[in-house]
């Protein structure tokens, strides 16, 4: 059951007003333009034990994603494909409004939006991750943990997820007798990647559209639309992720805004990659 949240972050009415009236003038309280991201830091291979990982900081938001690899059986309807599972947790660690317990609907939605964009674009070439087709395949777990919540968790998480996949090295699978499979941790191969994707979340305040809202700005958003964009500029997923309404024109404008902003994000990813390779 989904329930109207009642434990929202408290932001003073004064601050809300000043944030909103600045946005109306095309300005942000932290000096940014409406279509500008906060400072972005991406550190790939942050967790040496994981097969892939990335630390991502967007303004005050900190997300660490990690990839672990195992061997398992494929899904019956895709017997020749590896399996990838995306999981996200909003631990109480990261925000006074996060509560202990199993993943809440916001974490589940975030993981599923990321999962769908990755899956639909075939970002990971799962067809290359069968070990014994129909019987044994690579199982990939992509776990996303939020450590500090300063707004815009989705874009940050997608950056962490994408960087993790792009820099992951998985152990080579060796088939032993009786179809036993061993992962050889000494010999690592890069994950087969087809494509890249980022997500740009666009918020609406008094009919203005902004990107990369802070956690305080999120309290004054009327409405939020997440748009996933592939590196070649196609729309690879959308999700209205809030109450509130959009007009058709606003949605089209949001898509344009997202497409434009995605370039910054791809540039950041590629910059991080260039330092690794």
């Amino acid at each position, binding site marked *: *059951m*989904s*329930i*109207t949240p*009642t434990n929202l972050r408290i932001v003073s009415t004064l601050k809300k007003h000043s944030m909103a009236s600045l946005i109306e003038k095309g300005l942000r309280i932290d000096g940014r333009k409406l279509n500008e991201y906060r400072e972005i830091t991406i550190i790939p291979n942050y967790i040496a034990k994981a097969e892939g990982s990335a630390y991502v900081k967007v303004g005050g938001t900190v997300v660490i994603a990690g990839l672990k690899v195992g061997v398992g059986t494929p899904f019956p*309807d*895709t017997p020749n494909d590896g399996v990838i599972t995306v999981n996200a947790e909003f631990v109480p660690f990261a925000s006074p409004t996060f509560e202990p317990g199993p993943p809440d*609907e*916001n974490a*589940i*939605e975030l*993981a*599923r939006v990321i999962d*769908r964009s990755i899956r*639909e*674009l075939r970002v990971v070439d799962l067809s290359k991750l069968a070990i014994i087709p129909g019987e044994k395949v690579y199982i990939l777990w992509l776990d996303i943990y939020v450590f500090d919540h300063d707004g815009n968790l989705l874009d940050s998480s997608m950056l962490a997820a994408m960087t993790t996949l792009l820099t992951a090295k998985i152990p080579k699978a060796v088939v032993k007798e009786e179809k036993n499979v061993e992962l050889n941790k000494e010999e690592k191969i890069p994950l087969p990647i087809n494509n890249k994707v980022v997500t740009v979340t666009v918020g609406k305040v008094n009919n203005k559209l902004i990107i990369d809202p802070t956690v305080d700005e999120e309290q004054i958003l009327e409405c939020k*639309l997440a748009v996933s964009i*592939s590196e070649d*500029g*196609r*729309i*690879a*997923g*959308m*999700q*209205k*992720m*809030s*109450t*509130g*309404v*959009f*007009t*058709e024109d606003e*949605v*089209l404008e949001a*898509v*344009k805004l997202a*497409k434009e902003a995605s370039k910054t994000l791809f540039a950041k990813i590629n910059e991080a990659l260039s330092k690794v390779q």
Partner: protein
Amino acid sequence: MKPEGLKLINEEGLRVDGRKPDELRPVVMEVGVLKNADGSAYVQQGNTKVIAAVYGPREIHPKHLTLPDRAILRTRYHMVPYSTDERKSPAPTRREIELSKVIREALESVIFVELYPRTTIDVFIEVIQADAGTRTAGIMAASLALADAGIPMRDLVAAVAVGKVDGQLVLDINQLEDEYGEADMPIAMMPSLGKIVLLQLNGVLTEEEFKQALQLAKKGIMKLYEYEQQALRKKYVEIKPEEV
């Protein structure tokens, strides 16, 4: 993987169930189908069958779960175990948790929640047969059930999914089109106000395709809105729609 040789659009431009690309599936809508619920409705779109029940505004305990200036909404989207090809476990899946959320958020913008502070309005949707479009049928059933319960709303909600199959945009996709198509875009609107309350895209579209998909969806939504209004007037409508 799409089975070899499966064509979702045939040489005459028709879909697997004989529909034209811009044609809705047959629709049945019935209002007031349950005795206990304060409002209820049944919606059938093609082979998808959904029932919605509304309870409230009503009190809940403990009181600190309510809000002082508005009603809260509690929404459950659920598929019964026998609604799907393979039996679905009765426990809520991650998919059902997500859809309960997006449907709740859509309805929050439609209901005048500020009229009922410190109460809850409960919207329950049970999918009894699933053949694509369960969330859009579900939100329409919820909207009719809310109207039936006499809860003031800014507008009804009408909803439909546009898909891309074999490279072509099609309206109101069925299960086969959903499984083997390239994109599925469910959208819900307050039609007379021109406001989008739910929008998801699962798949890949160019910006231009997306624009066209929005147009196609809107046409379907205006038609479904008409049916909803008829259903509220007559309590029951059964329609085999022409192309929109």
